[in-house]
């Protein structure tokens, strides 16, 4: 819980230099702490853990597959035309 407050504080300091990776890493650390301890996932049954892991896995799968489409569309334009 103290760590959560620390990461909020850290996010204040990082505002100076732009770094989306850093911002998202801090967000993910915060999120992990909230899920593990506030939401008691750390102490919960395997069934609950599998549910959460599956959710994260499929969210990333869907986001990644969508982005492989959108981010690579520009590559297919024919320079000759």
């Amino acid at each position: 819980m103290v760590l959560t407050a620390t990461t909020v504080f850290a996010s204040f300091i990082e505002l100076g230099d732009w770094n989306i990776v850093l911002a998202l890493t801090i967000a993910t650390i915060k999120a992990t702490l909230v899920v593990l301890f506030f939401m008691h996932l750390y102490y919960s049954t395997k069934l609950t853990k599998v549910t959460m892991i599956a959710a994260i896995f499929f969210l990333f799968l869907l986001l990644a597959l969508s982005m492989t489409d959108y981010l690579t569309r520009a590559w297919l334009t024919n320079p000759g035309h």
Partner: protein
Amino acid sequence: MATSDIEIAEHALQHHFADMDQQKESSTFGMWLFLVTEIMFFGGLFCAYLVYRATYYQAFVEGSQTMNIWLGATNTAVLICSSLSMALGVRCAQLGKTRMMVVLLLITIVFGFAFLGIKAIEYHEHWTNHQFPGPNFQFEGAEAAGVNPQNIQIYFSLYWAMTGLHALHMVIGIGLVAWIVIAGWRGAYSPDYYSPVENVGLYWHFVDLVWIYLFPLLYLISKKHGG
């Protein structure tokens, strides 16, 4: 089975469960499944955000720079504090300290309203600055920055949709916590039966989680913040 167990069983155990453990695990599992659907629900918006951010990066930078970083950061802190009091409230319910639980959940509600109040100030600011997508949308300095205002409008559409949906979840969350407070005050929960408290807690933490990601994505795109 001890006498007290039988009393509890009569009081809280639903007839289609074998015992309290099974009932509790079913309710927790069900709540997590619901949260999975919520993750997918918000996931769609996050995906839309990623696609447009990748396509119109500069417009998103321009849009995010009008955000008040301090109000956003304050709201992050407010929400994490509310999650803390919520987690402590659930702990009290577990230990049977009903009065303390009620107090902590009331604190959670206060933090919830504080979040919505700060959000309302931000919304009002955007509204008066014509930063609401639609025919009245205006964005000063878009041409100077070499960005199509239409693309900044996409940023604001996503901003209003994502934070608006999040705020709606907050309103529902406050209602749920209020329900737990009233039921808890009437003595509905005990260390053997507090699943509703725990599940509303899970919901509240989930809403907190969404904001933890919304904040860096919407507010922290670029370094040039006015403060």
